[in-house]
């Protein structure tokens, strides 16, 4: 099969690899029809995630058709079109039994601090991902779901991570009616979170970024007020003034490890790998939220330490809520929202690249060229 493969930081290519095989009785093999590049894939692409091995295939957002199933699979059959959550999980361990699918204890041999994720290094289990023609899907009776006939393929694709994660992030923000919510980052997850804040009853949603075209998208897609942090002297003070000195009730960090806004922090984290991630967005969140407020962390960070302002968080009495999204828990309600016309996740998609051109897709996405928000990978005509 053809698959995207990692060749070292900033370098990928398409290789011919052996087809994946059923390695466990509850595996399925899925032929990928659509995949996408996630902002967190860029952390791998930039060499930030420990134990990212040469030859690894990235991709944790994909949909496709079941090609083959293992001997114990009961809920899927070859030919089914499925959406696959980015979490790999068993459905039966202590954590899965409580709905914490992203924290499954039975799938990631390499670490206990994080569950299993497709195509996201060996630190999340060493499973090749979906930016390939075929992918091994463990626990096929648990994770994948047949795509309902009335749901567009690109909507289903966006539910496998980006939109579900944004929706989950807005829930972790503990929003009550009329709250002011600041969303840091206007990438796909930030935009989805901003849009979802309204579903929770927010009174104001303010999106912060330094990419003007994404702020424009935040206004059009997420009905948000926007702030370009490169055009203000002090982003925290600006947000305080916008909230009458109080600070926002909640702040959602939808940026993560490669946050910009402070060159030293960015370079020590993203370029020199001396921190698990650049803590700029998280520190802005701590400073910009009101006392007693809530911070929802959706941005992905590496496992090393970061220079986070814990003292301010403690002194302000903040609640910090974080997790990788347990994606499948979000689906029933998100499908209702799509059917009701409340959301159309596919509106986030701006670019399409064929698998053969995936290196260009990563470069354009990483460099934020051409107004890119969400790139999708297609698989031939």
């Amino acid at each position, binding site marked *: 099969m053809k698959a995207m493969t990692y060749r070292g930081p900033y370098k990928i290519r398409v290789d011919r690899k052996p087809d994946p095989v059923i390695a466990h009785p509850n595996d399925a093999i899925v032929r990928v029809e659509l995949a996408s590049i996630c902002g967190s894939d860029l952390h791998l692409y930039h060499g930030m995630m420990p134990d990212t091995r040469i030859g690894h295939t990235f991709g944790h957002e994909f949909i496709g058709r079941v090609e083959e199933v293992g001997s114990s699979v009961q809920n899927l059959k070859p030919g089914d079109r499925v959406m696959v959550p980015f979490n790999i999980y068993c459905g039966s361990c202590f954590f899965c039994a409580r709905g914490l699918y992203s924290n499954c204890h039975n799938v990631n041999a390499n670490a206990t601090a994080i569950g299993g994720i497709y195509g996201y290094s060996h630190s999340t289990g060493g499973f090749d991902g979906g930016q390939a023609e075929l992918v091994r899907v463990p626990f096929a009776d648990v994770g994948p779901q047949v795509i309902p006939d009335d749901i567009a393929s690109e909507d289903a694709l966006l539910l496998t991570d980006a939109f579900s994660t944004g929706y989950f992030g807005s829930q972790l923000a503990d929003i009550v009616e009329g709250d002011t919510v600041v969303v840091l980052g206007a990438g796909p997850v930030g935009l989805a979170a901003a849009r979802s804040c309204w579903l929770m009853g927010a009174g104001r949603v303010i999106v912060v970024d330094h990419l003007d075209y994404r702020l424009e998208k935040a206004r059009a897609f997420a009905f948000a007020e926007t702030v370009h942090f490169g055009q203000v002297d002090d982003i925290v003070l600006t947000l305080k003034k916008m909230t009458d000195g109080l600070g926002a009730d909640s702040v959602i960090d939808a940026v993560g490890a490669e946050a910009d806004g402070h060159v030293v922090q960015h370079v020590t984290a993203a370029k020199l790998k001396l921190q698990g991630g650049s803590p700029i967005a998280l520190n802005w969140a701590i400073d910009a939220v009101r006392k007693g407020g809530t911070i929802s962390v959706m941005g992905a960070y590496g496992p090393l330490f970061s220079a986070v302002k814990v003292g301010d968080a403690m002194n302000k009495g903040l609640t910090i809520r974080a997790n990788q999204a347990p994606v499948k828990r979000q689906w029933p309600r998100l499908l209702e929202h799509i059917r009701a016309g409340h959301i159309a996740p596919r509106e986030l998609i701006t670019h399409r690249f064929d698998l053969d051109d995936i290196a260009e897709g990563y470069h*354009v996405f990483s460099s934020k060229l051409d107004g890119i928000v969400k790139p999708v990978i297609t698989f031939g005509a």
Partner: protein
Amino acid sequence: MPYTADKPGHTPDPDDLRRRIPGWGADLDPADRPAFPREQPGIDTGAHWRVPEQQPHGAGRERSLEHERLTPVFGTAQPLHGLSGLIRRVAYTRYSEGQTPHWMLLILGDRVESAGAHVRSLFSRRPDDPVTQSGVFGERGRHPIASRFGRGRVDVKHAWLDPVLVVGPWVAAAVVVFRIARAAAVPASRR
């Protein structure tokens, strides 16, 4: 403005928000929020086992010290190999996830493997090509100048580092190879 018990600023009108924004308030009731409460025992996950069957062929597979056993399912992509494999195995067998050397060794293993893979590729039928693999040709037709400049992007301050990170190791390796070759071919007295 005096500090009082009231929330400052104007209170948004729910009817206006409902009119303006599709679905406003649809999940106001926490009961409609799938992530509330955070832990929800009893969801039917589709699992029809209490303990999953063990995936075979796990002998020698590295695992975190914090796992008491190899997980029932594990990834089979890119098994450990070579010097980078030795480094990574030390990380897994000597240090728990809570210890910094665990992660630093894994990052070191990444860099060692990356360098080795590049060198090996030079002797393969498909050597690494840092130009096409960087995807830089994606710049064509995608407004590389207008996308970057004059728009207040703050990342332009460090973006110049990216090509250095991509090409730099190749240039450094070429210099080292050249010097070694010259040292081998030309006697010191003639250099």
